[in-house]
């Protein structure tokens, strides 16, 4: 599955930029408005790009077209309602968004979560991660001009999606987490469907490799393109597959195991150079690791209740805590300040896409227009997650 990498593949657009800077190449700059409605922006995201021919001189992301003010809205809603609200932040990984909220309330209230609920949570979280990653597998390939992976990915997604639907009744916004456990136990047949779905993904992931990662044109388009420096990633708080692509071994599931993650055997794939190729490579490997976790969790599934001893009205006691989870796109953290009410006093939501995208102006400088699309695609962001 490994791909040979050579120095020759790495190209320096800076050479072109330097020629322009030294005046050897007389050109005129123009401002290109990429978005808010553009196929490569996955929603209403705008990039003010100053281009010089095909070279991007400067790029400034403009966000906020989908700002819904969640941090204000949650202050007027109780925790049960917020669960359904935060589910809509990153609409590709709904159940992952609900997780840190439940964890934060559990931490403040010192609630015990029964083991079955912990395992079930892991199963659902990881299945959701696979769904999310397959979606980005499809969209990244489509942005590079390969249309077929979309259909392959959606074929596999559908079986996992069916399992999620059996358990939660939803396909995107699940609203299944509760402080202290889960809404209800999973129905009969759920485990079979889930195992079927993830095993199918595990079987077919080699096809994906052959179709995309092994492709010579794909390698030319991605290797050495959009390199994200390790220090830069730390400085901007870049996390998730994008940080791991930049050779940063940073995964909340390993570093600070929450739920039952310490019980499972899984690897954290880490890239080498931080280019588009590595980011995508990490993404595909994570699909495989998540599938392994789901398998292990279902095999070791304990029996018992799915909800701990939870008071009828959930009121977090006075205090504050920062809780974070490994969202499919990176670190999703919630800083909960409670004054003992049924509603949070303040909930700062630290979304992964927000920090990941904020580094774009630096990465995009002196790249080609075509590379810009590849880089945007390889930063795996969801607009709802940036704007909240």
């Amino acid at each position: 599955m490994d791909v040979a990498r050579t120095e020759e593949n790495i190209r320096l657009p800076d050479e072109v930029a330097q020629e322009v800077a030294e005046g050897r190449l007389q050109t005129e700059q123009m401002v290109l408005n990429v978005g808010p409605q553009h196929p490569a922006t996955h929603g209403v995201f705008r990039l003010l790009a100053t281009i010089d021919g095909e070279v991007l001189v400067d790029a400034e992301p403009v966000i906020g077209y989908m700002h819904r003010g969640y941090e204000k809205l949650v202050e007027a809603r109780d925790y049960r309602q917020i669960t359904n609200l935060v589910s809509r932040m990153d609409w590709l990984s709904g159940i992952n968004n609900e997780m840190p909220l439940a964890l934060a309330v559990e931490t403040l209230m010192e609630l015990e979560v029964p083991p079955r609920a912990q395992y079930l949570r892991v199963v659902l979280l990881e299945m959701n991660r696979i769904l999310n990653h397959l979606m980005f597998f499809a969209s990244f390939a489509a942005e590079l001009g390969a249309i077929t992976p979309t259909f392959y990915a959606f074929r596999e997604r559908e079986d996992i999606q069916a399992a999620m639907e059996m358990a939660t009744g939803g396909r995107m916004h699940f609203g299944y987490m509760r402080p202290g456990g889960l809404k209800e136990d999973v129905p009969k047949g759920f485990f079979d469907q889930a195992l079927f779905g993830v095993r199918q993904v595990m079987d077919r992931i080699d096809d994906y490799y052959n179709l995309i990662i092994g492709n010579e044109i794909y390698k030319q388009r991605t290797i050495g393109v959009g390199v994200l420096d390790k220090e830069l990633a730390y400085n901007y708080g870049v996390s998730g597959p994008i940080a791991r692509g930049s050779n940063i071994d940073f995964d909340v599931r390993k570093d600070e195991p929450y739920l039952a993650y310490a019980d499972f055997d899984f690897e954290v794939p880490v890239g080498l150079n931080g280019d588009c190729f590595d980011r995508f490579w990490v993404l595909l490997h994570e699909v495989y690791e998540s599938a392994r976790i789901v398998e292990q969790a279902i095999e070791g599934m304990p029996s018992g209740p799915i909800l701990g001893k939870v008071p009828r009205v959930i009121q977090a006691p006075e205090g504050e805590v920062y809780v974070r989870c490994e969202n499919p796109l990176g670190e999703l953290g919630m800083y909960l300040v409670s004054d003992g009410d049924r509603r949070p006093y303040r909930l700062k939501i630290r979304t992964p896409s927000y920090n990941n995208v904020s580094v774009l102006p630096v990465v995009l400088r002196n790249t080609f227009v075509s590379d810009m699309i590849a880089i945007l695609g390889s930063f795996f962001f969801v607009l709802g997650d940036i704007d909240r």
Partner: protein
Amino acid sequence: MPVTERVVGQQALDRVTAELGSLVGDARVNFDQIDVTCTPGNLVEVVAKLREAAGIEARFFTFLSAVDRTAFGGEERPDTERGTPLEVLVHLYSPDHATHINIHVPVDQADPRCPSITSVFGGALWAERECAEMFGIDFTDHPNLTNLYLPEDFEGNPLRKAFKLPTRMVKPWPGAKDPEEAAGGGRG
């Protein structure tokens, strides 16, 4: 490189206080994370030191935001234990030691000012713009302190407690169980 040496709780507190000394006021452990309070004047030095100090190396910029505590516990509070009720909150994380550090920076509520930490952490560029429009805090020497989300002509600072959601002012809060709360429109 994953976490090499786990430093949390009291051990982390010792390291942080040893490094920062008198730069910070109150420092304590909260759910294994470190809470420190510092003045706006010291903030840049504090984050720079936390980032570089051996044994801490909080290189990962998690978030920068603010908390308005004026309505904490349902009552008007002119000041809190940390000083003024409005505070800037910076969260740093050390990937090598799994140490979380929350830096609380109380700022003047009438004329909130805080130096920008963008010279240390580039990630604060957007976070400070968001914080500025949402809380009305002026981050001095930020290179481009324009609105990130809100339109330029937006009035008010939405995340301040004094800013009421218009829907809540005319409509009762739908989630209320008690009649008097529903009539009061909640506290949104």
